[in-house]
């Protein structure tokens, strides 16, 4: 029983008119896993998840969740699953505590609502109207509602959209705690960094299909992308005026940048510079320390040194060819270069 996948989706298709929102999606989620679906808005993530939850009926394909058919065994499944919907709300004029108690009463067993509110930082909002909550508080309340029945599998659709950085981290911690307590988590996000940090495996979804599915680190590694070490040097010392090749190879004067000496370091693939800005491309964990060591040894003055590791966003861009930022929605601003 425990070896059985928690979610099996097989050949899901869902059309809306001419648009194939889900165009043949198959995946499995194992017990205790945090499984993410990432992709731009409109990629088909939400439709897929809602087909799995039994809220939408796929045109084609098979879904099994916890060994149950989401349509035929809807009530039995809903008893054991938690859902946070992308578009949902609560009746007008309801208070936080009332909503939580109400939802708790729909289930045979329920978690301690007060403890849940405390854990989500909503402890002092119990008697507040839901309509008075901030966007982040509302989002957390809906996460609380998804957890009120102590579900075995939780679906979180765009769980941190609209949250500030603190709120996002709080939710991430909570998701990890849920997993630690034995729940399986399926989430969708258009934040690449979120998927990368949180998920054991991610499915990259684009135009209704899964174009890659693996652990984030594996996807990144498989991309074979280069890491970059970027820094700036003094423009006078690092003169770019054309010089005969042999002189470049000659030992540099102390304090002067020698591109060639960087180029021969372990793991360095190539070095580029434009004015004061130098970019060292390479692979491997030792790249940064090798570059810094070389600069220190030569006594080169540098500043603004940072590294840019390839990340899930690079994988996504490479796979989809969506080079324009618009395709990713707001993801670009948040999932920028990982700066160490």
């Amino acid at each position: 029983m425990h070896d059985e996948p928690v979610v099996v989706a097989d050949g899901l298709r869902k059309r809306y008119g001419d648009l194939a929102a889900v165009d043949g999606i198959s995946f499995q989620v194992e017990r205790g896993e945090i499984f993410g679906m990432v992709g731009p808005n409109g990629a088909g993530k939400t439709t897929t998840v809602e087909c799995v939850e039994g809220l939408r009926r796929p045109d084609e394909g098979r879904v099994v969740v916890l060994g149950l058919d989401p349509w035929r065994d809807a009530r039995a499944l809903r008893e054991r699953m938690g859902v946070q919907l992308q578009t949902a709300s609560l009746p007008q004029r309801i208070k936080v505590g009332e909503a939580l108690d109400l939802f708790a009463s729909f289930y045979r067993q329920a978690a301690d609502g007060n403890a849940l509110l405390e854990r989500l930082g909503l402890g002092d909002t119990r008697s507040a109207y839901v309509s008075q909550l901030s966007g982040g508080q509302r989002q957390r309340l809906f996460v609380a509602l998804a957890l009120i029945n102590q579900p075995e599998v939780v679906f979180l659709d765009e769980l941190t959209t609209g949250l500030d950085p603190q709120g996002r981290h709080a939710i991430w911690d909570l998701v990890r705690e849920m997993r630690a307590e034995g729940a399986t988590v399926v989430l969708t996000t258009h934040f690449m960094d979120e998927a990368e940090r949180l998920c054991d495996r991610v499915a990259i979804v684009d135009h209704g299909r899964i174009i890659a599915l693996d652990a984030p680190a594996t996807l990144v590694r498989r991309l074979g992308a280069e890491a970059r070490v970027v820094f700036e040097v003094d423009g006078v010392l690092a003169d770019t005026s054309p010089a005969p090749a042999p002189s470049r190879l000659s030992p540099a004067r102390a304090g002067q940048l020698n591109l060639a000496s960087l180029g021969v370091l372990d793991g360095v693939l190539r070095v580029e510079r434009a004015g004061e800005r130098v970019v060292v491309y390479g692979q491997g964990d030792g790249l940064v320390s090798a570059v810094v060591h070389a600069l220190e040894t030569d006594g080169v003055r540098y500043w603004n040194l940072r590294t840019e590791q390839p990340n899930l966003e690079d994988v996504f861009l490479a796979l989809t060819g969506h080079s324009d930022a618009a395709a990713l929605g707001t993801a670009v601003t948040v999932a920028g270069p990982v700066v160490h």
Partner: protein
Amino acid sequence: MRGLKNLMWVQFILYLREPAAFFFTLAFPLLCLLLFGAIYGNEPAPAFWGRPIGTVDASVPAYIGLIIGTIALMNIPIETAANRDSGALRRFRATPLRPITYLVASIAVYFLLALLGVALLVVVGKLVFNLKMAGSWPAVLAGFALSALAFFASGYVLASVARTARMAQTLGMLIFFPMIFLSGAGMPVQMLPPGLQEFSKLLPLSYVVKLMQGLWFGDGLAVIAMPAAVLCGLLAVGVVLSARLFRWE
């Protein structure tokens, strides 16, 4: 069962927090009663076929129709469509809550509210205007229950037919206002010109007023059979249609 009880309680509380709905359902009929009672008094009037019936005696059963109409045509479609538009029903759907539990809870709450409205009318009518009821209370209650359920079911049909809450509101008002004035619920049908009196027979609410007044005055089957049959038909159609058309989103 716990879900049903909780849902009823929450919906009741939420209803009380909406002053406009509260006012129109409970306070408005009461104000009408006080206003027209103060104007016309409750002495037996010739308008009522020479029977010992005063204006207030005739108005209270008609205002029961007003209460039922307000809830069925205004409260139910607007509230249901608003909860559907906002995604609240959708969120309910992701739980083990059965649609029928949701409907039963909602209808029970509206039923209790209507009953509360009727009780207010009767109590105030008795205290202020010496309201008389010539029929039997169980029969009046049964007629009220039939009328309310038939109309509430229709209200859910309206909620499902309307695409949005705004449309539900427009549709409800479009039916509600003519019906209130032309069915005898707001004012006696006898005051209408003959053409409109004929038109009034097309309005379902007329049959609520006829039934309630018939039961109130202790009339026999000859008077109440027809309106009761019409309302039974409306109830059957309403239940079938509302169950078929109801949607969470």
